[in-house]
């Protein structure tokens, strides 16, 4: 079944379609959450919560407003950022300004022997910190192009061409 048909079935309350979508995207959603909150167990719990939310709010997905993955990505990062905020609230010493993806890659440098770390590293090979920062803001933090431009003190046009070249590099790395 193609994605559009699957999503339509899911929106009608079809649990089989929901399972298919879960199989397709669960690791991605969990990866997004893990990148933001950096807590393995908690990210699995949050991942569950996010899929329950996706099911409960299925009717609110409007295909005319964007891709299905973009929609669930938004739900996932909102849940993760909320989690981060409530945690930071409890422990004021923690710094919210850290950049997840950059951090994550840094952490992975430290534990190089992990197979997953090797996978990420090869995928993000050749990406400058500028790229990681921008991917982090746009895909993991949900910044708009304008917000990202303000954050990085660059014109919107630059933001667009830069993210283009960053993703292109990943696509190149994917082909090996």
């Amino acid at each position, binding site marked *: 079944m193609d994605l559009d048909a699957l999503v339509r079935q899911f929106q009608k309350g079809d649990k089989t379609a929901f399972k298919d979508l879960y199989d397709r995207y669960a690791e991605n959603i*969990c*990866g997004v959450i893990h990148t933001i909150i950096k807590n393995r167990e908690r990210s699995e719990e949050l991942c*569950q919560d996010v899929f329950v939310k996706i099911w*409960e709010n299925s009717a609110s997905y409007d295909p005319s407003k964007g891709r299905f993955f973009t929609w669930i990505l938004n739900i996932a990062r909102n849940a993760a950022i909320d989690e981060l905020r409530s945690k930071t609230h409890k422990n004021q010493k923690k710094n919210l300004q850290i950049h997840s993806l950059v951090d994550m890659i840094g952490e992975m440098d430290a534990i190089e022997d992990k197979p997953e770390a090797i996978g990420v590293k090869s995928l993000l090979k050749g990406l400058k910190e500028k790229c990681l920062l921008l991917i982090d803001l746009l895909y993991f933090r949900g910044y708009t192009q304008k917000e990202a431009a303000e954050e990085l003190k660059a014109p919107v046009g630059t933001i667009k061409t830069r993210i283009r070249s960053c993703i292109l590099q*990943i696509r190149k790395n994917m082909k090996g």
Partner: protein
Amino acid sequence: MDIEKYIASGILELYVAGALSPEENLEVQHYAIEYPKIQQEIEAIEAALLEVTEKMSPGLSESTYNQIIAEIDDVIPFTPEVRKKKTLWTNYAGWAAALLFAIGMVWMYVGNQNLKTELQISSQQAENLKDEIIRVRTQITNTEETLKRLREKSISLVNLDGQDIAPESYAKVFWDQSRQMVVIDALGLPNPPVGYAYQVWSLMLNPLTPTSLGLLSDFEENEKRLFELENPNASEAFGITLEPAGGSKSPTLEQLYTLGQVSP
């Protein structure tokens, strides 16, 4: 439209991120439908992002999905379509309730006003009935008194017969000499024409001397046609004539309706 330039602008990467304005989103979707190459590019960008995010996952356990399903099934069962409608319904429920309440209030108010009016009418009717009862009782008392008086021994009855102008008419005079009163029973007289009234006369016959006893005033309103008049005279006969309203000093004999002699 230069498709290559559009793709190179980086707008599609932002589209997948959800970082565009709603207008830009619609624009991208429009072009994606129109140009398959743009659609392919969007999917390729998404695939790259899926690759990255998947690599970032710590790995999910087998039980995760079952836990999600358990949680979903624990929630009140629903289908998303129904849920949407339900949400819509609850949005309007408050307004609907308010509207119903307002209609109810108006309805109650109108109903209450109607009841008040009905109550007023009912109590008015009760008042009227009470008045009617009092009136009827008074009438009965009056009639009984009249009857009692007419039956007294001292009463003498004088029959007045119809004269030339109205041979069919008649009247009775009950004369209570001790009280110097007469009761005229005028049931046998026709209603007087407008602007005229019956006048009762006490007559002495030798020579013929009429003395007015008074008018049968409000003739038509007096349903029993019983009229009480004073008569201090030593009457030998009684006569009733039709006179202009207000009465005359002497009887108009051409308009003598009834006449009767007191029996010696």
